């Protein structure tokens, strides 16, 4: 066993060196989000009485429970755990899966692992180093949350810190298993992200159904466990054992698999392809390269839509006499019927997530260029615009497709007839101008400064954070206005659709895309 781990320390140092920017930024952003919450919540709910009313209103409403989970304590600490606990766990989970896959499957896929494994590196050392790096990052998140919230009560702060770190580590081990199964890093990240998404949907469905979060569905989700720890609300420390058990089980599975396979090989092996190809051009190639990922996103959006649509009726249960809560919902959603407001909030949520799709899809251009697969293509009779156009068609058309499917799911799940379903589809499609604007920013970044293109993730992440957490925090309107999603009409439910912002955002997206493509045409291809 000792030989199997030889070189772990060196690999860990290598991993930390490579992640020296991403990891600290992510750790700080995640923990700051949580730590700043008591202040922000304190400015919304100034007195204990206000907080108590808000908490009971939240708990009575199944759709809010679905999004944020039940409130277990109406102290500032309790509300912080309610509002930010799961969100921070999702962020920690994304960081963990990226870190683990990056240092395991991606190393093998690129062939770099071969070079490392030829040195004094044990068979299980890369996996161990990757998991240790993820564990370290998650521990830092937990530590910062604990330290930052200590003022709200040390035990609660510790419980929340451990829960967030625990959930992140569970995702890390899930990603470790995925990295053994798939041959490509992209697929491994996709599998791990799907697990994370499923955990969120399970938690949401469970919380929507049962008031105190005691549904079996919630218990099945690691994100549900974050709630069940009940930080600041009479901590249930034994729930932390669930994280430990899941980490141990998944970790053992990953280690067992890692010890049984060859470097670079996977358990889901590829099949041979056709000896002759039918791909007719760069458009067909872009479709071929992205169709798998688009299929995954489509299925995810349809399922999420169905689940959230099924919860919409519960939104009418709201105890409607809390002005603050109503205000929050209205700011998030719409003006009229609360089920409409809920659907609008869900459409907005799907739009925010679709921004992640559009960024990942646009950045395929950068991956193709930096992977030196673009160069031989462009040495053929293919203009850069035509080449980029294929991928952008998938990115922009694909966002329309997944949003339409999300809307279809919402409508079908809501089950109020064809007109209602059409409304839900329309509401989701109304997110497109904002999604496209984010995508167009990614195009501009890629065209003008390909090395900085991954910053588009930060753009999408900021929009996501503003949209998800902003409304409850009284974030200044000037800051909210930075996100294109703020300018969208709240649909369904608006009495009349404001077409102007939609048209303006679409025009802005077109202009940004055109500028990005022009710079792409005139710059050197990065060797």
């Amino acid at each position, binding site marked *: 066993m000792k030989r199997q781990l030889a070189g772990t320390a060196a690999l860990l140092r290598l991993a930390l060196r490579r992640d020296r920017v991403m990891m600290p930024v992510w750790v700080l952003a995640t923990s700051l989000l949580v730590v700043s919450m008591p202040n922000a919540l304190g400015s919304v709910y100034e007195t204990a009485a206000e907080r108590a009313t808000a908490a009971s209103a939240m708990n009575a409403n199944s759709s809010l429970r679905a999004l944020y989970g039940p409130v277990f304590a109406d102290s500032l600490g309790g509300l912080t755990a309610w509002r930010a606990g799961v969100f921070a766990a999702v962020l920690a989970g994304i960081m963990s899966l990226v870190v683990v896959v990056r240092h395991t499957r991606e190393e093998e*896929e690129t062939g770099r692992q071969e070079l490392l494994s030829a040195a004094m590196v044990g068979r299980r050392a890369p996996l161990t180093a990757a998991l240790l790096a993820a564990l370290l990052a998650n521990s830092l998140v937990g530590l910062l949350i604990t330290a930052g919230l200590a003022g709200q009560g040390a035990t609660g702060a510790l419980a929340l810190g451990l829960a967030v770190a625990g959930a992140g580590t569970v995702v890390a081990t899930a990603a470790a298993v995925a990295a053994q199964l798939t041959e490509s890093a992209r697929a491994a990240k996709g599998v791990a992200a799907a697990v994370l998404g499923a955990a969120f949907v399970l938690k949401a469905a469970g919380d929507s159904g049962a008031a105190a979060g005691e549904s079996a569905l919630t218990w099945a989700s690691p994100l549900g466990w974050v709630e069940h720890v009940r930080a600041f609300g009479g901590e249930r420390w034994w729930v932390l054992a669930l994280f430990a058990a899941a980490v141990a089980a998944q970790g053992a599975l990953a280690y067992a698999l890692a010890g049984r396979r060859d470097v670079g090989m996977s358990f889901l092996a*590829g099949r041979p*392809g056709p000896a002759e190809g039918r791909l007719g051009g*760069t458009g067909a190639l872009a479709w*071929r390269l992205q169709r798998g990922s688009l299929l995954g996103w489509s299925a995810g959006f349809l399922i999420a839509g169905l689940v959230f649509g099924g919860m919409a009726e519960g939104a009418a249960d709201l105890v409607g006499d809390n002005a603050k809560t109503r205000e929050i919902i209205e700011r998030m959603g719409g003006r009229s019927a609360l089920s409409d407001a809920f659907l609008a909030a869900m459409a907005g949520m799907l739009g925010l997530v679709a921004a992640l799709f559009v960024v990942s899809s646009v950045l395929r251009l950068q991956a193709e260029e930096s992977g030196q697969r673009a160069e*031989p293509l462009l*040495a*053929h009779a293919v203009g850069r615009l035509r080449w980029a156009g294929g991928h952008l068609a998938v990115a922009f058309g694909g966002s329309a497709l997944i949003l339409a499917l999300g809307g279809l799911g919402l409508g079908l799940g809501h089950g109020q007839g064809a007109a209602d379903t059409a409304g839900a589809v329309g509401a989701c499609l109304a997110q497109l101008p904002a999604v496209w604007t984010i995508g167009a920013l990614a195009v501009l970044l890629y065209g003008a400064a390909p090395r900085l293109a991954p910053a588009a993730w930060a753009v999408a992440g900021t929009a996501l954070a503003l949209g998800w957490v902003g409304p409850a925090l009284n974030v200044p309107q000037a800051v909210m206005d930075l996100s294109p999603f703020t300018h969208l009409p709240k649909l369904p439910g608006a009495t009349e659709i404001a077409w102007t912002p939609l048209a303006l955002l679409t025009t802005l997206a077109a202009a940004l895309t055109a500028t990005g493509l022009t710079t792409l045409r005139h710059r*050197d*291809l990065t060797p």
Partner: protein
Amino acid sequence: MTKAEAISVVGLHKAFGRTRALDGLDLSVATGEVHGFLGPNGAGKSTTIRVLLGLLRADSGTARLLGGDPWADAVGLHRRVAYVPGDVTLWRNLSGGEVIDLYGRLRGGSLDRARRAELVERFELDPTKKGRAYSKGNRQKVALVAAFASDADLLILDEPTSGLDPLMEEVFRGCVAEARDAGRTVLLSSHILSEVEALCDRVSIIRAGRTVESGTLAELRHLTRTSISAELAGPPDGLADLPGVHDVQIHGGKVRFQADTDQLDAVLRALTASGVRSLTSTPPTLEELFLRHYTGTAQADEGSGGGEGHEGSGAHAAGEGDAAGEGDEGGEGDEAGEGGEAGEAKGRDESTGANAR
């Protein structure tokens, strides 16, 4: 060139930040020839090729490809050009066969099916494998089949045989020869000297972004020195003073020296005047030729072209010796006692020098 030039590059400059990748590069490739493009790693070969393919834009200088502007007319020109990079990367979920056919369609026409099948056979390529399942050599084969199966007028090959086994190297040479017989032009960047010697009509050698030598191999050989050892009947009067004679060593009746190849006639005449009993002459090897151009610093470029070139190169050899910390013999290379090829081959270290011998 009397014939139309397939590639004509004059005074090309390209900088990446502070790094000057191309520093006034010239390159001229006549239509229908196989042109070797040589130079040490980092000399600017791939950068030149990327400029020719319209992937990079030159800072200054002119580049013409098949009579067009490689940047402005990129797409139109690329219908007539096939390119094989030195490191072929494939999409992990596409089979080799799919990539070959995709490349064929992207060039505008479709591939000649019979030719494609024949090439797949000759290169012993399994076209059903996908992406990373291919070894380095097999990935090269995918690009080579796609290039040779096309009807492109110009083949730009950037170290195309890296990773190929010797049998496949033979197949590759056969394909290049066929391409030349079909009247196509080939620009071949390579480090494999035997490949260059076997295939190329003319070569250009570049270093530090500049062309240092260009011509047929025979012409280039002409610019180098021949080693001569002879047994003479009488003393070799005045031999050391003849132009183009270097590193003279005299042991009794035996004499060893280096002579510039274009001065051989006069040198031999001087020897026969002393009465020649035996004579051995060793022509310069290709390796010597290339090592002479590959080593050295950017400033020491006087070696390019003409009779002056020899002196320049000699001085340059001395400079090199200094740099390598062999100042004593290097500084006075011409009369250094142990000299032979040390001054000529100019290895950066002893072993390189030995190789050159």
